[in-house]
């Protein structure tokens, strides 16, 4: 009964506020949490528009796309923020997205040509280890060593899928051999990033699959210099996170404003110390102090959206068969 009253109150409240236009942005959960970029970005954007920016958080990037597919054209979302290039092909297939028309001078290590999605941040996958331990120089070194790693399952985790494509991009048809070699280094496989990182911090493994920028968190937020990312000579696979505008948005102008805002300084300068990724367009003030100590991979690896979509089933099958024996 009490809840009915609550629900009624919220409906009435929503009607009262109907004059202020609402822009609904679907994103992943950690973006909207109080430690993520969400709150600061909401304040900054609402200061420039006479509108109400509402973030709706759902799991991670893949869960976000699943939710959009479930809702289809009935979705309330005006913007989807938080897909990566491994998901954009499937996202485009839904036919729900419209080109955003925003041009920007990206600071990405690769050329960006996709007109449908707007990159807002990026990073490199990397194995993070204790700074006092010598790290292997590449996947083959790692496989030959007795270093223990903990990774994420590609079926349930974004970084897990990233590692799969990293090995595939670096080794192509040789990927199954690499996985065979890595099998005895893998302590275990977890459902998501948090579990794996927790296990690593608790000393269950020497290295964990994360990002080259992970040590930046420890350095900047905790003043802790004991974590480092291992540079691999094959190069590092990238994750580029993007925003997309929905064709069926009921706030096209506001949505376009937001897309332009995404590549502006006000948005971009929030990213490094909340999402712990590189901003897609480096803000005027530059990167926060500490980021200059992060490793710069010798080579950036990234499948195009179509390649990634084509490659992942095969890569998953190879991974499963190498690790299931």
């Amino acid at each position, binding site marked *: 009964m009490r*809840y009915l009253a609550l*629900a009624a109150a*919220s409906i009435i409240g929503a009607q009262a506020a109907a004059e202020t236009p609402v822009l609904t942005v679907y994103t992943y*959960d*950690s973006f*909207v*949490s*109080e*430690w*993520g970029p969400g709150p600061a970005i909401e304040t900054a954007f609402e200061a420039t528009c006479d509108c109400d920016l*509402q*973030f*709706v*958080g*759902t*799991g991670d990037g*893949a*869960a976000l*796309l*699943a*939710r959009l*597919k*479930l*809702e289809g054209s*009935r979705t*309330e979302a005006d913007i989807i923020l938080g897909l990566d290039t491994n998901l954009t092909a*499937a996202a485009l297939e839904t036919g729900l997205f419209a080109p955003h028309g925003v041009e920007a001078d990206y600071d990405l290590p690769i050329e960006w040509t996709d007109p449908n999605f707007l990159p807002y941040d990026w990073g490199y996958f990397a194995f993070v280890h204790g700074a006092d331990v010598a790290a292997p120089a590449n996947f083959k070194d790692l496989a030959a060593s007795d270093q*223990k790693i903990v990774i994420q*399952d*590609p*079926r*349930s985790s974004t970084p897990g899928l990233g590692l799969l494509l990293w090995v595939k991009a670096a080794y192509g048809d040789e990927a199954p051999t690499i996985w065979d070699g890595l099998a005895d280094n*893998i*302590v*275990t*496989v*977890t*459902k998501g*990033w*948090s*579990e794996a*990182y*927790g*296990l690593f*911090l*608790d*000393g*269950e*493994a020497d290295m964990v699959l994360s990002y080259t920028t*992970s040590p930046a*968190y*420890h350095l900047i*937020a905790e003043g802790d210099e004991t974590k480092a990312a291992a540079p691999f000579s094959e190069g590092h696979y990238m994750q580029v996170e993007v925003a997309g505008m929905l064709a069926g948005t009921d706030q096209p102008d506001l949505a376009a404003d937001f897309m332009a805002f995404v590549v502006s300084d006000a948005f971009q300068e929030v990213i490094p110390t909340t999402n*712990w990724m590189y901003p897609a367009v480096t803000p005027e003030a530059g990167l926060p102090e500490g980021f200059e100590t992060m490793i710069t991979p010798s080579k950036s690896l990234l499948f195009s959206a179509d390649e990634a979509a084509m490659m*992942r089933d095969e890569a*998953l099958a190879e*991974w*499963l068969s190498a*690790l*299931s024996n």
Partner: protein
Amino acid sequence: MAVGALQLGRCSGPLIALIILGAIGAIVAAVISRSGGLALGPGDMAAIRFTFHQAVWSAALSVLLAIPVARALARRRFRGRGIIITLLGAPFILPVIVAVLGLLAVFGRGGWVSTILVGLGGEPISIYGFHGVVLAHVFFNLPLATRLILQAWQAVPAERYRLAAQLAIDGWAFFRIIEWPLLQRAVPGAFALIFVLCLTSFAVALTLGGGPRATTVELAIYQAFRFDFDLGRAAFLSLLQLGLAGTAAAVAVWLVPRVELGRGLDRSHDRWDGRGAGAQDAVVITLAFLFLVLPIGAVAYDGMGGLLVLPGSVFWAAVTSLWVAGLSVGLMLTAALPLAGWMAMRRRAGAEVVGIFGIAISPLMLGTGAFLLINPYADPGRLALVVTACVNALMTLPFALRLMVPALRDLVDDYGRLSLNLGLRGWPLWRIVILPRLRAQMGFAAGLGGALSLGDLGVVTLFADQDRATLPLQMYRLMGAYQMEAASGAAVLLLLLALSVFWLCDWWGRHA
């Protein structure tokens, strides 16, 4: 006059069963209707086999180990017994990730056991593999099995223990005459319940199983849903999971004989058997206590510092979680009492299978289905907490039924004729006869349900709402934001809250 004329929950019982089945059916139908076709993938058979094996082993070991523990606890009275029984419930109510980290602090590569072994010049142990999955599941479910079986010991009328003592029945004869029948009554149900719980395991099985070898059906559902976005396959796999669970439940119910434990006068339990086995019981209780409490202790120790750096939002999340838990317990009891009454009136307990579906259906499917059902009419995000409470109530219903149905059957046998003679029916029958004598079961079920609901991450992640988070979700968010120290503090807060809720309800139940 047959006691059947009592007609406990004659209308409301089947009605609630129908509502539950209808809700599950609608959810599954909603998911299936969005899909193309149904087919099993190549890895699915392996996943089904692994899921089945680990669930059988986990359930069998949990129940086998629980028997001596319950027996020792049932016949001993000592200082701190109540606290031990409460603490034994702790693993069951912890969020999966916290319990896993606790287990690894003890049994992991860098854990206490390995450290001691290496210190003594031995090899560290490896927990990762099939044995690790079973170990973790026993860790989670041994307490539940212990409590369910302990309940059976306590259901034996005190007069039977007196009589046995007077007749100097001890040892093997005591086991055969008193304990074997009560085990026959309690063990199949406990086994089925734990089997079904282990069926839907995913994160624990994967992490402790050491990789994709330990792929369960639930993980295959996850893959179908988010990797392939094949809703049909996801729904089909969850129906398979449901089928496995339903079969297990049906077999268990069929195995439970109608055992007459005899009537008693609600006298307090005094035990004379088991004299001379004191040392043995002490060892059993100590070992179980250490196995279950050491990992919990590791979690608590780890999170002490984190308690001091908890952001205010975590406390708000705790308040949110408390009311979700309260709502879910209320819903669960409202459904469980008439349902249990209806089931208790039936000779063959086929209806009990209904209850088990609540935990057998994939949480991911349940959440997705609920999302699909709500989405056309309302914003699922706004209803996230109510849906969470409903799902939690559904999840805890099987435990409540497991506890209440046998007790209610005895009540009907004991007081049914007298009540009929006195013309007691309907609400007065519940108020005067049933509820006071069902208090222990209600208290335990409420405690378990409340604590479980507090610790459940479950469907709320699918609907997450920026402003209102539950405590487990907030803990996950802290972890996701690299704040592991604060996250472990939140885990301790969660542990304290869940144990308090559990202890309070259980205490209420045990003290008339």
